[in-house]
């Protein structure tokens, strides 16, 4: 909207501008209203658009829908032909079965604890490191930053074998919370994102805080963190979701079912049910994804912005 206003405010000094204006006025008589990306509106195009959206909705949404309805169906209904699109006799039996055939309660507690500490560390390290890199002096500070960034090029997958030896053999932390959490507690990408954000904050605020006699920890806590709230929330939510879904490392470092996290546990349940008893397995997957879906529904804006920030601003 602003752009259009700016465009029309120009006085047509140059010939091309007036010509453009003329053609624009004339075009307006023949062309249907323009949507903001400059598409002509037409019934046919809109109809195709809605048809396309329906196809996309079905392709992406149907598996999740099928999972959810399957979780509430009795076994005989799941294997019945033709299929039912809505549970005829909704039941919670599958959830009870899933909960008793494997220690789902443990999975939940383990996932909540490791996600809480895993993301807690990431957010804490991200905020404190980013603050230090922007507002504190240190010899060769930018070199230190590059060393930290280099970690981005070394994904966890490459280091699982040595880390298994360190954590399980040297530290003896297989099947422990610290064993699951610590190797993934440090953070480079979050430091990078928050540092970018802090650098964009107006300098005057920090000068004011200094004049008021606030020390660094106080400035960080009561000035920087509140100002950078949206970026911190976005990063924090993405961190929580990725810890919740983390798979490879917990798979390697736990081998007793009472220490499994949810993603490992749901596979364990599927194995226990012999890949055939889909009712309890679907109930289990609902239990795994439900908390993340709830977070997503409430905080979609932050999550999507966090993802897009990496591309547009990065």
């Amino acid at each position: 909207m602003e752009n259009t206003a700016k465009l029309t405010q120009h006085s047509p000094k140059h010939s091309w501008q007036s010509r453009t204006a003329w053609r624009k006025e004339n075009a307006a008589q023949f062309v249907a209203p323009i949507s903001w990306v400059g598409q002509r509106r037409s019934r046919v195009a809109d109809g195709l658009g809605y048809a396309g959206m329906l196809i996309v909705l079905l392709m992406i949404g149907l598996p999740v829908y099928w999972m959810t309805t399957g979780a509430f169906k009795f076994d005989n209904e799941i294997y019945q032909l033709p299929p039912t699109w809505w549970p005829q006799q909704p039941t919670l039996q599958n959830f009870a079965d899933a909960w008793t055939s494997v220690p789902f309660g443990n999975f939940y507690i383990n996932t909540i604890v490791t996600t809480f500490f895993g993301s807690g560390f990431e957010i804490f390290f991200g905020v404190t490191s980013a603050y230090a890199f922007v507002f504190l002096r240190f010899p060769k500070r930018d070199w230190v930053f590059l060393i930290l960034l280099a970690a981005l090029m070394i994904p966890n997958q490459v280091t699982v074998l040595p880390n298994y030896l360190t954590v399980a053999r040297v530290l003896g932390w297989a099947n422990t919370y610290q064993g699951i959490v610590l190797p993934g507690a440090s953070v480079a990408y979050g430091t990078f994102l928050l540092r970018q954000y802090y650098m964009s904050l107006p300098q005057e605020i920090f000068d004011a805080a200094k004049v008021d006699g606030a020390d660094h920890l106080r400035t960080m806590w009561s000035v920087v963190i509140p100002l950078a709230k949206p970026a911190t929330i976005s990063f924090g939510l993405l961190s929580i979701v990725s810890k919740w879904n983390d798979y490879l490392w917990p798979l390697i470092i736990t081998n007793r079912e009472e220490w499994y996290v949810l993603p490992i546990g749901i596979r364990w349940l599927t194995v226990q049910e012999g890949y055939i008893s889909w009712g309890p397995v679907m109930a289990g997957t609902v239990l795994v994804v439900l908390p993340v879906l709830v977070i997503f529904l409430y905080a979609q804006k932050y999550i999507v912005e966090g993802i897009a920030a990496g591309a547009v601003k990065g």
Partner: protein
Amino acid sequence: MVGTTTRRANTRVSSAERKEWLLFALLVGPNLFLFSVFTYWPLLYNGYLSMVRWDFLGPKVWVGLDNFTHLFTQGDFSFVLWNTFVFTVSAVGLICGLGLAVALLLNRSLLWRDGVRAVVFSPVMLSGAAMGIVWLFILDPRYGLLDILLNYVGLESPNWFLDTRWAMAGVIVVHVWKNLGYAVVIILAGLQAIPRELYEAALVDGAGAWGRFRAVTLPGLSPIFFFLFITTMLASFQSFDIIHVMTEGGPVNATTTLIYNLYDEAFKATRAGRAAVSAVVLFLGMFAITLVQMRFSERRVHYA
């Protein structure tokens, strides 16, 4: 900052500055320490492991580059590389291509658009393991949803994960389904960054829909598409949970990619050396991709 440094260069470092150094070390130190223990050191140690023969129990036997020459001359590993290539190229192509189509669709001002955007993005947030299992149910050749739907049009579902020809297609479908929303979000952000004036100018110049797409949309999207291409490639390269829950690399290694091979060699076959070679190849591949990205996107990324 530069000014401060030069001004202080001649004088002795003040105690205030020393305090800042100390605070800096306290704030950054733990983060860097953990990276040293769990990222930098393991990378080096993995390099060492790639040159020994070791079963996790007995003594490590130094074999130099034998693990590399063995793997690269033996058929299995080139098959693993081929699988990784097929998986990555198909996944990246489909995610970027379909992502562009869906993003263009959801960029139109249609009713319910935001709802559909949310649905498309939601699988990105959900556990890959859980979604892989849901898809096992859907692709089940006996009572899966896909088989039921195919029966309506007189077709039979293939036996996805017992048939070596279909297994790779199966895991690619699920990976693409799960990650499509990421591409859509990135491309939508890119579309919104294209100035509206360009479309209006193209329109008054008489460009049709295809002309506007070629002259305005595609060039406008190219930087973000490059970013998307790289990140999708890295993510596909590392995809593990879907393959592990759906096929365990099978049948007969048909879906064993580099990362799966690494897991298999280390934790099933207990051949540390060969697993480490997989990790080295994985790292070098990703390193090359990242270097390409840094080379071509320097103007957008400001490191210091």
